[in-house]
């Protein structure tokens, strides 16, 4: 459905995207992972036809993303990564403009989405919170029931409750056979919804994997608090992948199955157990390191 072939768009060394190729199949939810500045938005801008590739091509549903941009938009729902609207409009006015520019007559779906996301469309957009604006963008992307969705960091600014509603929305789209490409800088955001994910680093694709494979390869760090520093040291001796010991607190890494850690921990008195929030580079260290060697 979405085909990116040898896409290159350079904004200087390691800025932009370089020789990028991947496909998103019909009915698939594809996660596009990378830290900020890795080239996610550049890829998406190419898909929307906002910029021309230096080399390579982007095709959506058999149509060229630049030449046939306007035709593609009929079937496409897009959520921009940057939240910027017409500030001097109310939410209602903006949605009406968007619907009219799409030639969309039926606004039932639009009002359903507004209810689902508990969005207040009466007020001026410039007075809305970041989360509200994000919801407005989501309504815009979904209101015409598109076959393909391209969402640039869709959950940013949403509270946890709204994030779950968003996940349900995506699952519903998946059940309907829609194709979704969503970018994110955190694995947790996409692991619940995506079938496959591509990981991008400095404009180059370092992996395209099944989400189950990625889950198995993910390296998580748990922070374990023991009764006393002695116990912590004992544990550090028993467990193979210890990142750091400081007093009674140990950071232990787990790649894949967490069972091994639990088995070792069972013999200790554990006071606290937390998951450490990590950046994408830490979670998929091996991908990022591997490509360092390749360079």
């Amino acid at each position, binding site marked *: 459905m979405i085909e990116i072939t040898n896409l290159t768009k350079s904004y200087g060394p390691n800025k932009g995207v370089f020789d990028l190729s991947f496909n998103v199949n019909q009915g698939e939810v594809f996660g596009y992972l990378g830290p900020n500045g890795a080239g996610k938005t550049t890829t998406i801008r190419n898909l929307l*036809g906002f*910029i021309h590739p230096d080399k390579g091509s982007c095709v959506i549903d058999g149509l060229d993303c630049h030449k046939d941009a306007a035709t593609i938009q009929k079937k496409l729902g897009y959520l*921009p990564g940057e939240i*910027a609207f*017409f500030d001097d409009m109310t939410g209602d006015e903006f949605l009406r403009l*968007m619907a009219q*520019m*799409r030639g969309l007559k039926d606004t039932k779906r639009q009002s359903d989405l507004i209810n689902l996301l508990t969005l207040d469309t009466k007020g001026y957009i410039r007075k809305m919170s970041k989360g509200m604006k994000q919801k407005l963008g989501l309504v*815009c992307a979904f209101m015409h029931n598109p076959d393909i969705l391209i969402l640039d960091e869709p959950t940013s600014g949403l509270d946890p409750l709204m994030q779950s509603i968003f996940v349900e929305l995506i699952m519903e789209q998946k059940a309907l056979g829609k194709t979704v490409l969503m970018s994110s800088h955190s694995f947790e955001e996409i692991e619940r919804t995506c079938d496959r994910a591509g990981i991008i680093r400095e404009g180059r694709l370092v992996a395209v994997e099944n989400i189950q494979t990625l889950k198995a390869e993910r390296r998580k760090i748990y922070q374990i608090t023991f009764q006393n520093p002695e116990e912590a040291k004992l544990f550090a001796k028993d467990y193979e992948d210890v990142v750091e010991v400081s007093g009674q607190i140990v950071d232990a890494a787990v790649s894949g199955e967490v069972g091994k850690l639990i088995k070792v921990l069972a013999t200790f008195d554990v006071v606290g157990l937390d998951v450490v929030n990590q950046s994408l580079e830490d979670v998929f260290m091996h991908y990022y390191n591997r490509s360092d060697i390749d360079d």
Partner: protein
Amino acid sequence: MISLPLLRATIKQNYKVFIIFLAVLTLYFVVIAQMFEPSVYESMDQLMQTLPIQLIDAVGLKIAEPSLIGYLAGYYYGFLIVLLPLIYSIIVANRIVAKHVDKGSMAYLLSTPNKRVKIAMTQGVFLLGSMTLMILFVTVMGIISCEIIYPKELDIPRFVLLNFGALLLHSMLSGIGFLASCFFNDTKNSLGFGAGFPIFFLLVQMLLNANERLSNLRYLTLLTLFNPEAIIGGTASVLPSFIAMFLLAVILYGGAVLIFSRKDLSI
């Protein structure tokens, strides 16, 4: 080839500025027209003689002939009719394209099934249309005010021709702002170039007026294409300059739409 919903939205965003400019244009017109009085005219002349001649010349306050239209051509059409609509077009041209790209709201417009050409043409139609409406308003308002203050005094055909010249001038000048707005991805440059060129022209024009020895500078400004005295005087043919302004307007607007439809957008 234009998007009516977008046109409506653009009108709604800009009509307040438009009305303010109409009000200012009317105010100046009525104030200046009221001062036309053969006796007052003489005292104005005396007043003018007390001022440095370069200053008067620089702002183009030249009187071609001692009639109402000659007076208006000098006092209103010499400077104000150039400056005021120009400021309007600089502000609006920047707002209708470059600002949407700079802020990112253009991404929403382009996520609808409308070609870039259509979006740019809609905005161009608004700018050119509002300029036309503005000059049309000045024409009608001018005729009505003159008929009220000085019945049957105004040479209406020549006044209409004068305004037609002003319309061509502003079609061309607003084209510069529109091109800058379509070319640049940020409002800083769009405004810089869109305002920079016309202001440069205006400064050259003022230098030209003030010092005849600098007459070679006339090739550096497009404003010499609009010469109110020549238009009402009917001495030299104004047709070549009218055609030149028309062609430049077509090229500027057409080029702007073409550039916008092809460039890389940072949205």
